[in-house]
């Protein structure tokens, strides 16, 4: 009997120590390429801010899900008035900010009023332009009245720029972010890493990870050894699609290729001769060989596009056949435009590899039809200044990564210099239409007009290459917005 007891105790001990030794990991190091300039999603356009904080530390009334769908977040449910102008949000109860203060309707009013105030420097102020008033009905209910119905309103409230912050901490979020999310901010070693830890007071389903460290690895060549040595266990946005091949067949890693909302385009200055003529722009479209560009600039991973819409979007219309690669046709069009001897132009290229690599290929393709491009590499600051603000350019390559942004072609003074009242009318109608079928028709028409006008050279949808440890699951495959939502991420063994 005594012997039995001893054996059982010993066995029990073995099992106990055994399980604890093999307990599932709960810490994670994620590699990111760019360091956020600060940690307040409501005060800057840098994608790196959302890549660390969106859905992890900060939450909005609604949120965007892994496939671009609108999901309830701090708002448990909502109703919309018949005229589409009044949204009444019912908020979750028992929600606390990480500093211990309670979340309620006053915080929602504060956050939205702050974002749309006259002196606000919210980078996406346009998201709030339709809001007329924000009223607190009771601590758990917010009533938002719009100036006019806006079909994208619920989606807009899911952006990182629309997250809910507390009045006490709003001004210090840049350094010490305080939100309502499942992770709270722990530390930021500048130039090195940002660490989040699990929040014990979270209102929703608890997360599996106890600690998540975002480590800044700026050099694409360093990303592979960082994974191989085990220092970093995941790169949800792998910086260099070419070197993905090095880990593709390695069973220790998962390589997941997904879609983004980044329409990669050859932007054309539509007011600058000779690009103000339709034939010239169409000639450029015929001269482009998308397959060669995708192979060379995105390791063959990009999906071709024929207009400004992601192929993953419900409203997508396939217009890639409108301008097939046809050098003869391009030459004919240039001849019709009186440019049979070709012409010279500049191509300004910002730093990302898709632009620098794609630019070389495009320059050689356009040379085949007689357009002699001089390549001018620029940094982002120069690009924003010269190309985007001053519109001092002929051609440039850039990926427009914001979701559902076909309306940029109707913006006054936008850098494309494109002006088409018919297109503007469609976008204006679209904003007022909530009927799904009608919206699809309008979006289809909008895509068709842009393709017919050959406003820009539509190239491909920027791919998202994610690489992570094979024992991890729960990362987003696609990137409908640029975020690293860690709420479902866990180690499987």
């Amino acid at each position: 009997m005594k012997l039995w007891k001893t054996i059982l105790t010993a066995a029990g001990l073995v099992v106990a120590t055994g399980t604890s030794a093999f307990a599932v990991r709960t810490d994670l190091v994620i590699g990111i390429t760019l360091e956020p300039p600060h940690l307040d999603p409501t005060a800057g356009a840098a994608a790196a801010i959302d890549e660390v904080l969106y859905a992890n530390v900060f939450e909005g009334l609604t949120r965007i899900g892994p496939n671009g769908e609108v999901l309830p977040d701090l708002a448990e449910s909502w109703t919309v008035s018949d005229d589409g102008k009044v949204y009444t949000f019912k908020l979750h109860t028992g929600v606390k900010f990480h500093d211990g203060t309670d979340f309620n309707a006053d915080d929602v009013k504060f956050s939205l009023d702050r974002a749309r105030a006259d002196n606000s420097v919210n980078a996406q102020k346009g998201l709030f332009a339709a809001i007329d008033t924000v009223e607190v009905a009771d601590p758990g209910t917010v009533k938002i009245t719009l100036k006019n119905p806006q079909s994208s309103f619920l989606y807009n409230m899911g952006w990182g720029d629309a997250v809910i912050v507390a009045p006490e901490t709003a001004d210090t979020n840049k350094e010490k972010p305080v939100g309502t999310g499942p992770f709270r901010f722990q530390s930021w070693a500048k130039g090195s890493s940002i660490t989040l830890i699990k929040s014990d007071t979270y209102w929703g389903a608890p997360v599996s990870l106890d600690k998540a460290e975002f480590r800044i690895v700026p050099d694409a060549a360093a990303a592979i050894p960082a994974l191989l040595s085990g220092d970093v266990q995941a790169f949800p946005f792998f910086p260099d699609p070419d070197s993905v091949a090095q880990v593709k067949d390695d069973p220790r890693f998962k390589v997941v290729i997904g879609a983004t909302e980044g329409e990669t385009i050859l932007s054309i200055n539509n007011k600058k001769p000779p690009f103000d003529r339709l034939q010239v722009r169409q000639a450029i479209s015929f001269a482009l060989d998308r397959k060669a560009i995708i192979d060379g600039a995105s390791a063959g991973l990009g999906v071709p596009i024929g207009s400004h819409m992601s192929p993953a979007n419900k409203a997508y219309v396939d217009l890639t056949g409108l301008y097939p690669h046809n050098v003869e046709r391009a030459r004919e069009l240039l001849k019709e435009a009186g440019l049979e001897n070709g012409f010279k132009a500049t191509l300004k290229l910002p730093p990302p590899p898709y632009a620098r690599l794609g630019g070389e290929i495009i320059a050689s393709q356009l040379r085949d039809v007689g357009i002699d491009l001089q390549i001018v590499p620029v940094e982002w600051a120069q690009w924003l200044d010269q190309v985007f603000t001053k519109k001092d350019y002929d051609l440039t390559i850039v990926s427009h990564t914001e979701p559902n942004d076909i309306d940029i072609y109707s913006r006054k003074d936008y850098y494309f210099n494109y002006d088409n009242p018919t297109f503007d009318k469609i976008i204006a109608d679209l904003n007022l239409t909530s009927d799904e079928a009608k919206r699809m028709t309008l979006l289809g028409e909008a895509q068709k007009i842009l393709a017919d006008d050959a406003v820009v050279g539509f190239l491909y949808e920027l791919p998202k290459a994610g690489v992570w440890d094979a024992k991890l699951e729960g990362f987003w495959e696609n990137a409908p917005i640029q975020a690293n939502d860690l709420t479902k991420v866990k180690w499987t063994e």
Partner: protein
Amino acid sequence: MTTYLLNRLAIAVITLVLASMVVFAVLEIIPGDPARLMLGMNANADQVELLRNQMGLNAPLALRYLHWAGGLLSLDFGRSYTYSVPVIDLVRERVVVSLPLALIALALSTIIAIPVGLFSAGRHGRAGDTIATGAAQLGVAVPNFWFALMLIYLFAVWLRLVPAGGFPGWSAGVWPALKSLVLPAIALALPQAAILARVTRSALIEVLNEDYIRTARAKGLPYRAVLWRHALRNAMIPVLTILGLQFAFLLAGTIIIENVFYLPGLGRLVFQAITQRDLIVVESVVMLLVAAVIAVNLLVDLSYAVVDPRLRSRQ
């Protein structure tokens, strides 16, 4: 000696003032607007203007220069536009990485270079010299980011002795912090050592041809003693000059190595600040580096006086 020192100090001050003007002017000329960079492509012109006003970017040029330069005099380096924290805090966080790294790399480089230079000069023209000179040539030619990657694959990925990159901070303990600086220090030291070895060798060979060396040999001193006591000391001036230049380079010119090992050093701080047009950070950090280089040069000048007594007595 006093005149020598005062002269050097006066030159240092004038250099600092001129440098501050050049740095400020250059950054004014380069295109790019920090406010637009922060707000991105969806913000309208009015908003950008609003932020420019908040950042104080719309004040006249001369006023902004005086404000900044005046701040520097009272050791106030301003606040970063993007990080919105005092520049001096950013610098402090980075110096604790860059300074030890530069010192370790410099020590390594000296430990390798001086003996190699001595060995090579002592066997001038013979097989040993050819091999050592060839190795030094290779050390200069190998691109340091490639060498760094090879080190990472060998010691971090394969042997797993050290991390592939990153810096845990000194708060994580002296040993883990030092471990993460070992590979970058080697990667930085190798090309520097190669250059230093070549300079040491040629300076020594020149000195070894001097009459006093022949005299020393003739009076029967052993070769080793002549080399160490007479030749090396006289060959030190060019070696010290190169060491001074190398230290200045290692302090801030190591951006490539900092990127490969993702170390939060001064080089990356400046690089990031330039891409984000965080002008105040660039200006203030560059000025601090200018001051550091001037200080190092001053030290090198003083060390000349230590190795060469003639400079001490000269008026």
